[in-house]
């Protein structure tokens, strides 16, 4: 398959996935009997509001969110507002625009997740390759430790780290993203303060990402060790160090697609990690929105996660196309 064909087909698939994801995101909350506004308003009813007041709020919300329109119209409105960067207004913090809430949370999630995913991927792959090549005690310890971290649910490790390092030992602050009384701003003082809170959730995510990648890399590298080219290179007198680079290069390729596949899982796991550390990112926003039946916020958060994961996967797959010579080579029409 030529590089151009490869890219075209990947683009096609991801566009298709995006369309499906947007439709699902729109449709799923609307498929329930009644509608979200019912849920909200009946919740208010329990708060002792009169039925007349309930009806008024109901109608206002129905109008505000366009729920009195036919489904098709709602969808068109939904799509056009997404393209205008308008994600609606929050139920819970009415009339705060959803985009404002997201703008407050997203940066926290990004500074936590991007370094954890990238660094975890790099360290994990190196460790896995070394374990596979060295074998023996190295392999045993790295593999077993990695497997433990890999199989630990994100939040389980987070809880244990939080309890041991923050609550028991007091090395880190036990939650939040910055000290009370401080507020997010572009100042050195804020950053040094926030950094203290950042470490613990970061380490927690990093360890798990390292574990997962190391386990994957180790099995890929062991596969590669048995291949013909390793044997042949050995017969030519090529040294161990050089050979490790060959193995690493080949074992790396499937790991790149592995990264694409695991980004979705990682993001999901990281959401809960934020919860454990009361880190005010998207995960905490989502948690609060779910608790408050704040549909516009939930929908917006899921939409952003979906788009981010799709874009990240797409970029990884494009990168893969450029890296793997078997795909790249066919660009110039060679055999």
């Amino acid at each position, binding site marked *: 398959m030529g590089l151009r064909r490869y890219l075209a087909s990947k683009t096609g698939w991801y566009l298709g996935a995006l369309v499906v994801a947007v439709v699902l995101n729109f449709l799923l909350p609307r498929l329930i009997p009644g509608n979200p506004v019912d849920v909200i308003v009946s919740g208010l009813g329990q708060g002792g509001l009169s039925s007349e007041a309930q009806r008024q709020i109901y109608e206002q919300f129905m109008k505000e969110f366009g729920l009195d329109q036919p489904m098709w119209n709602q969808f068109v409105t939904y799509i056009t507002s997404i393209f205008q960067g308008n994600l609606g207004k929050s139920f819970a913090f009415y009339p705060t625009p959803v985009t404002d809430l997201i703008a407050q949370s997203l940066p926290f999630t990004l500074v936590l997740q991007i370094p954890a995913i990238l660094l975890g991927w790099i360290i994990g792959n190196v460790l896995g390759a070394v374990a596979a090549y060295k074998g023996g005690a190295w392999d045993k310890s790295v593999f077993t430790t990695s497997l433990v971290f890999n199989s630990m649910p994100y939040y389980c490790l987070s809880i244990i780290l939080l309890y041991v390092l923050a609550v028991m030992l007091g090395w880190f602050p036990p939650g939040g993203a910055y000290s009370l009384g401080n507020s997010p701003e572009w100042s050195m003082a804020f950053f040094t303060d926030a950094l203290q809170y950042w470490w613990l959730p970061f380490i927690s995510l990093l360890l798990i990402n390292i574990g997962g990648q190391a386990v994957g890399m180790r099995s890929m590298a062991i596969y590669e060790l048995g291949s013909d*080219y390793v044997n042949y290179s050995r*017969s*030519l*007198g*090529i040294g161990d160090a050089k050979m490790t680079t*060959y193995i690493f290069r080949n074992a790396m390729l499937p790991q790149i697609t592995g990264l694409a596949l695991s980004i979705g899982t990682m993001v999901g796991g990281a959401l809960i990690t934020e919860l454990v550390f009361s880190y005010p990112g998207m995960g905490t926003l989502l948690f609060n929105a779910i608790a408050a039946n704040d549909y516009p916020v939930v929908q917006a958060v899921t939409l952003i996660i979906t788009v981010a994961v799709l874009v990240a996967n797409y970029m990884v797959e494009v990168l893969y196309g450029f890296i793997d010579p078997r795909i790249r080579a066919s660009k110039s029409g060679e055999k």
Partner: protein
Amino acid sequence: MTKSLMRANNLTAVYAADSGQDVPAVDNVTLELPEGQILGLAGESGCGKTTLGTALAMIANPPLYVVAGTLEIDGNEINLSTLPKNANQVHRPYRGETVSLLPQGAMNAISPTLRIRDLVVDVMRAHNGSVTKADALDRASDRLKMLEMPTRVLDSYAHQLSGGMKQRMVTVISTLLNPALLIADEPTSALDVSSQKALIEMLLAMVEAKIMRGVIFITHDLPVLSMVTDRLAIMYAGKVVETGRTEDLVNNARHPYTAALLSSVLDPTEDTRTKHVLGIPGSPPNLGNPPSGCRFHPRCKFAMDVCSTTEPKMLSEGDHDFACWWAKEHPRETIPMEVTHA
């Protein structure tokens, strides 16, 4: 006889089976190759010929262990055993430079993410750290030009080459350092007859140009061997049963197994049209538990009582060695072939 290029002494190699038992795949084999000649190593699958090649190329890897054996070559005496802890370090400098391997099925012999040129540079540098990239590539392209191959293949990845081209490219890489001995393990088996012929002609040209000073050519294909080799060694169940000049072996087999193998060859000739061959009854033995005495005796038409009790020693008739009780009792008599004609 001309000066000896290499001599492998008392080579024994075992496979460690999952059960914990060791299966001897090559059992106390001694092999000699005169300077400038091509030695064919023939036998059917599982006879240990590839294992022998692997041991000689010093690349035995678990579960294969070389338990004993030395290789005299080029004034060196190398301990082939892979049991000492430093075996890998001891063997590495010899690999590719003294003994080189041309592997079976070059299909995956080159890392798919490596350009041929990168491998060329790495091979040269592995033996001489001071070689520059340009020097290494010059040498490779000179070699390619000499062999009338296109130099652009250096810029390719392995998957961009056809099967025949890949096999010849691997041959060039294997011989880049002018090894004393090249071990060619079934290099032609996966090729069409025309590519097969091209590769054989290239190997002969390389021997003529003294790029390497001797070749051990391993294959089950006797017609190919008769075309290429000066000498033949026939292996059965981990042992060499007969060696000698190719003509002598083909025309005057002294071991019943050699004779049966030769009779099973089906050439497109008038003779094949009319002959009826019986083949060899039974199957090769389990190497974990080989038959007593001569390992071939359960399948041998000439077996006598002594064959099942005592292992025959290597006998010599001039330049022709064989291990067979029947042949000992019938000096200079060719083994009768089991062939009938219509």
